[in-house]
């Protein structure tokens, strides 16, 4: 049973995974961690107006996303899925552009990436995943839809509606809940009646799995099993990855007002990267030198992404009007013209 509280100590095992896979997981988690650190720094420097950290959730995100096939699956994120995007192969300068507020949905191509636009309506994209999955079945494809949401979003009606639809249509969709135990300032016991999101799956007649979200091997295995079931026509799965939001909700938040930071500190010690590193050495998947080399490569890549997003061009003002419609209207063309005249003054 995954722990709800951290004692600050733990071990995981990755012996059931291949060395190649664990090295890839480590690389993506490390890169996401470094990029997260860079992003917080960019916010402090005023380059990002705000940022939402994924620190501590790298295993939950990378372990799940790495079990998908980016050539045929489709991911529906909300707004705290940076590590998942990275592991899935999304173009990360374009992804991080959302945090620089260059474009709400991000600047990556969602259809080429097969990774939906950053979406701030928590729960809102969950029925999209079901629709995509139903459409995939209709066309006879083997793809699986992955919907990310959190413990807060689990309270949204859309999440219930989506799970019910998925059950009725036996849709190939995975409902991946990262339960980081804090929906902004509200803890699980004030948010999740019954205490378990995974347990709700039973009510929809679908599989529900509770997994240690800081154990990347366990997350990967649970997700791979859900993917296999979905591809084979076995329908949806709810995965609840129990983890912890060690950072504030966003850079605008003040957790001192609502939680005891000693609790967060104990979770920082139960760090998914530390756990993975020790497990890889224990399993003989890599030695310290190898991991140090991955660390150096990851830091370099994170810096490149950081520089890329910091230097990215701002969208041109005319883009206000460009994508409202496929076939624009005379009205909007007139407003575009008025805007043009105003900026040319």
């Amino acid at each position, binding site marked *: 049973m995954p722990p709800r509280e951290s004692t600050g100590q733990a071990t995981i095992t990755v012996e059931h995974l291949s060395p190649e896979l664990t090295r890839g997981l480590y690389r993506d988690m490390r890169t996401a961690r470094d990029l997260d650190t860079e992003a917080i720094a960019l916010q402090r420097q005023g380059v990002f107006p705000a940022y939402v950290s994924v620190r501590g959730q790298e295993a939950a995100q990378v372990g799940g996303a790495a079990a998908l096939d980016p050539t045929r699956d489709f991911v529906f994120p909300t707004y705290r899925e940076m590590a998942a995007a990275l592991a899935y192969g999304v173009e990360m300068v374009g992804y991080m552009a959302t945090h620089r507020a260059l474009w709400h949905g991000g600047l990556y191509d969602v259809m080429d990436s097969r990774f939906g636009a950053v979406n701030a309506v928590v729960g809102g994209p969950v029925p999209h995943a079901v629709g995509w999955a139903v459409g995939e079945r209709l066309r006879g494809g083997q793809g699986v839809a992955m919907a990310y949401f959190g413990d807060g979003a689990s309270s949204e009606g*859309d999440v219930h509606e989506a799970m019910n639809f998925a059950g009725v249509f036996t849709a190939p969709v995975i409902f991946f809940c990262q339960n980081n135990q804090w929906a902004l300032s509200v803890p699980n016991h004030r948010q999740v009646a019954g205490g378990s999101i995974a347990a709700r799956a039973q009510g929809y007649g679908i599989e529900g799995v509770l997994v240690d979200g800081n154990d990347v091997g366990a997350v990967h295995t649970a997700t791979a099993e859900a993917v296999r079931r979905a591809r084979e026509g076995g329908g949806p799965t709810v995965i609840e990855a129990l983890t912890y939001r060690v950072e504030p909700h966003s850079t605008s938040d003040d957790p001192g007002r609502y939680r005891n930071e000693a609790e967060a500190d104990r979770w920082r010690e139960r760090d998914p990267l530390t756990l993975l590193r020790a497990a890889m050495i224990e399993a003989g998947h890599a030695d310290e030198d190898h991991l140090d080399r991955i660390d150096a490569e990851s830091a370099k890549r994170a810096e490149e992404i950081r520089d890329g997003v910091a230097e990215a061009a701002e969208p041109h003002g005319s883009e206000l009007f460009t994508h409202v419609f*496929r076939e624009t209207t005379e009205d909007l063309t007139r407003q575009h013209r008025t805007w043009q005249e105003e900026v040319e003054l």
Partner: protein
Amino acid sequence: MTELIERAAAPGTEGETVELSMQQAINRALRVLLDEDPEVLVFGEDVGALGGVFRVTDGLQKEFGEQRVFDTPLAESAIMGMAVGLAMNGWRPVPELQFDGFAYPAIDQIVNQVARMNYRTRGAAPMPITLRLPSFGGIQAPEHHGESLEALFAHTPGLKVAAPSDPAEAYSLLLQSVRSDDPVVYMEPKARYWDRRPVRLSEPTDPIGTSRIVRPGRHATLVAWGAMVHKCVQVAELAAEDGVELEVLDLRWLKPIDAAGLAASVSRTKRAVVVHEAPLTAGLGAEVATLITDGCFRDLAAPVQRVTGFDVPYPAGPLESQYLPTIDRVLLAVQRTLEY
């Protein structure tokens, strides 16, 4: 009401002119669309075996199969959310929400997702979704079955809004809406579902966003959409007996609105009365009045009049006819504008 609901499967072949009710005309258009484009999907509550509560989708499941025409569980938000996901997987969804008032539970998906996804993704994920929404009042239905949401939808960037007034218009506008790569809210005036008229089963000719003159006249223009168009024609017929020639303009596209068509008509007649079922305040009539004023201010002989529902929740049966614009109220407004 049940005796009025007839089977919608309709006679006639492409190019012919046949007499159809509006529900039959919509059914007919759906058949054309399902037939011509294998990506078109029709879904919603009770649209399958039952054929919809108004029988608009009658026979479609049988003809096109349970994969193309299917029932969903009863949850409006998920129906629209599902449409988004289907569109992202290359389909052309035509969801139905059973009644206007039940679009409110789906507003988040419609406004925050459907309307914005093309914008949010900078054109990567278009939303060729047509929401079929039985709309407006006039059938003495229970609460939430007689609402007019056009101002809300027209106010939402990224949506287009259509409201046909008769069977021929219903046929053409639906073909255009579904073939459009932009999301369209297609508001079906349920009070006119059983109105039978000749429909030419041919391709639409007028572009999206154009209005049409239903009846020409020279003393004032009545502007309406949906079921109010028929009411305005009745008003015009009565007024004609007194020698007053009213022009009736069917707006039919509520976004984009045909500002040029409005100005062209009113600059000739010099007077305008806008008629809608929705409440007065911040209703679409205010937008129409402004467009007319902007478009032909110097030609206006009187302020634009509005005849609308009242600023009250939509009432129950016996009060419905007192809430909706009546012939007398429209005639009084005509008198006000003529005597101004």
